[in-house]
């Protein structure tokens, strides 16, 4: 079916020439919002010497790991075979991972590496000359890569292209040279502690509502969504999308936790496990958001942090966040998928796969598979709660991105290209023959839904909490 969809081919110049949008930045500066005056959220300033600052930041921020990825690439082009951008646009030489990484690599070569400093032309070293060049770089690193890390796993040298892309994004974020969507979400997360500017009142009100609906639906008056309860077995953290637009997942979780007899709680503050710092490359934002979660767990003396279904949130909260915040991990942090697995393994909940008879396949989210450790657990659970499980190929570490990763869903201007290169994913989905595609990431839900609609596939996206909740056998006392 996806064959029938003829994509309008995007001209790469239409992407790379996109201007720097400043409307939100102007507004933020007029309103003198806190995160700007405190110097956390950076605004673009035309008067400043941005190119020089870029160079300074490059030398300040670079790590040994990044520097080795800068020097190790041999320009063999093998990575072109692994990126959904270059695979869908094989005749566009600007889509290969190595080309994208080279846009930052050549600045490194020009200013830090030996040969490039002396003979720049010889190794294609080049510095940006003006803000126009930086804006061009912005469009490449934000607009033509979903930071999925697939190329890294297929590079014979082990070059961390996706990390180089993130590194470049981080420097640009520090100069305010970012897509408007990135600015807006960063602003909200700095200002309100969560990505969608949900107020505490709205947060509590929504949880309360979910609780009431559950009580009514199940006719169990003592089912609860506990807030800020101390000394619990775990503290549950979520994606703000769940609160703002689709709290069904919270009620699925609450229902499962209730029947498993779990002692759990949600924090009043520090509940957002997502982290836009991962996408914008801003380690300070990453540290701030992650620390909110870790500190909430300490405050509540929770024994464990459980992260709801989310790819980048898991990667940020379970792995990167501790390092960004330089915070020694003090309690286990796990994805809810492991919690579910434990419940089923230990017989704490009973499930009946017959309740999910539709053919279902699993989409490995990049941040959980390549940058996390959750390859087998979701399959184990799916096997227990569905009758007709179909593997997608390639899978696990080699799966293709939902094509909405790397924060791309918040950058509308790059959407046409994103959907064009989603062709690989569409074909992969279609080949499974499944009617449902399960993912344990909210971002992937939106990325996949978008491409399913675009390619007119006969498929629906589900999440694992929904499937587990569906399959539960509840014995009423």
């Amino acid at each position, binding site marked *: 079916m996806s064959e029938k969809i003829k994509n309008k081919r995007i001209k790469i110049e239409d992407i790379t020439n996109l201007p720097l949008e400043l409307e939100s930045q102007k507004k933020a500066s007029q309103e003198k919002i806190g995160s700007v005056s405190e110097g956390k959220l950076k605004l673009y300033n035309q008067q400043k010497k941005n190119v020089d600052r870029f160079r300074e930041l490059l030398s300040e921020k*670079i*790590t*040994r*790991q*990044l*520097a*080795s*990825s800068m*020097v*190790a690439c*041999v*320009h063999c*082009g*093998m*990575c*072109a*075979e*692994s990126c959904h951008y270059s695979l869908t646009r094989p*005749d566009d*030489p*600007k*889509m*290969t991972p190595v*080309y994208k990484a*080279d846009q930052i690599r050549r600045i490194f070569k020009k200013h830090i590496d*030996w*040969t490039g400093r002396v003979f720049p*032309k*010889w*190794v*294609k070293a080049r510095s940006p000359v003006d803000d126009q060049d930086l804006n061009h770089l912005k469009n490449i690193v934000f607009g033509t890569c979903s930071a999925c890390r697939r190329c890294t*796993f*297929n*590079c*014979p*040298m*082990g*070059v*961390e292209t996706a990390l180089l892309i993130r590194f470049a994004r981080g420097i640009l974020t520090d100069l305010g040279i970012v897509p408007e969507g990135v600015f807006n979400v960063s602003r909200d997360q700095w200002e309100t502690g969560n990505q969608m500017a949900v107020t505490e009142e709205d947060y509590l009100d929504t949880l309360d509502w979910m609780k009431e609906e559950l009580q009514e639906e199940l006719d169990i008056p003592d089912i609860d969504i506990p807030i800020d309860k101390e000394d619990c077995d775990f503290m549950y953290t979520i994606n703000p999308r769940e609160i703002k637009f689709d709290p069904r997942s919270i009620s699925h979780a609450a229902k499962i936790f209730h029947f498993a007899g779990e002692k759990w709680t949600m924090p009043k503050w520090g509940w957002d496990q997502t982290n836009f710092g991962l996408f914008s490359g801003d380690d300070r934002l990453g540290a701030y958001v992650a620390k909110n979660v870790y500190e909430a767990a300490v405050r509540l003396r929770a024994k464990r942090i459980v992260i709801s279904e989310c790819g980048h949130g898991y990667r940020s909260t*379970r*792995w990167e966040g*501790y*390092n960004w915040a*330089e915070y*020694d*991990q003090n309690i*286990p942090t796990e994805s809810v998928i*492991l919690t579910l*697995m*434990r419940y089923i*393994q*230990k017989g704490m909940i009973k499930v009946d796969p017959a309740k999910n008879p539709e053919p279902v396949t699993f989409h490995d989210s990049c941040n959980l*598979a390549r*940058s996390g*450790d959750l390859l*087998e657990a979701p399959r*184990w659970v799916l096997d227990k709660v569905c009758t007709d499980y179909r593997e997608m190929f*390639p899978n696990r*570490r*080699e799966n293709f991105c939902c094509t909405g990763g790397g924060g791309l869903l918040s950058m509308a201007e790059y959407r046409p290209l994103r959907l064009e290169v989603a062709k690989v994913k569409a074909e992969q989905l279609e080949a499974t023959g499944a009617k449902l595609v399960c993912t344990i990431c909210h971002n992937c839900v939106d990325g996949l839904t978008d491409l399913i609609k675009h390619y007119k596939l006969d498929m629906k996206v589900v999440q694992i909490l929904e499937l587990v909740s569906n399959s539960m056998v509840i014995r009423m006392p």
Partner: protein
Amino acid sequence: MSDLLRILENEFQIIAISFLIFVYILRIVWLFRFKSSKEKTYPEGNAKAGIAYSMLNVAMPWTMETTRKKHFFYIQFVLFHLGVTLAIGATFIIPYWPHLFEIKAIVWIFQFIVGVAFIVGLFRLYRRLADASIRLISSWDDYFSLILMILYFAVAFLAIPINYQRSEWPLILFFALTAFFLIYVPFSKIGHYLYYPFTRFFLGRTMGHRGVFAKKKKNRSTEGL
């Protein structure tokens, strides 16, 4: 043997090698001067196993989609690098163990592999020029290094059946090129083998720590979690 060749084979090579080692040490010191990050999280897998797995990547073509699917690329990669190894080996054999090359079979093996590497080199040059994506990323250094390698294979091919009587030129060229290499390599992409352990180490450490690298047992148990 002429004096020129003798000095070229011995003292000159030693000076060039010392230079290479010196620059390499500087280069590693340079890399180590970049700050490193500390791991603050509980492990899920084993960093050491990950590092081992990552380092061995070069010998495990089945672990990577690119090499698994493109056998041809892997084979030509192996032949090319084998050619490099043998050619470098010859630079030691000729001055120090020349009797090895009195055995015809060894000469043939060396010549065969180096000859194949030469052809692979030509193919690589063709690919670099013909494929628009690769052309776009290629620098002068990429072209120059590759052409140099191709030349080197050709000269090695001629020099290996040591024959001072017929002509010394292949040997003189061979050792002159070797010396040039030793000096040029650390400043060019050919030095990538020096970085391989670094990138592979870092990737292996991260992925091992997280349990992504080194295929683990399926269905881990949640006991004790």
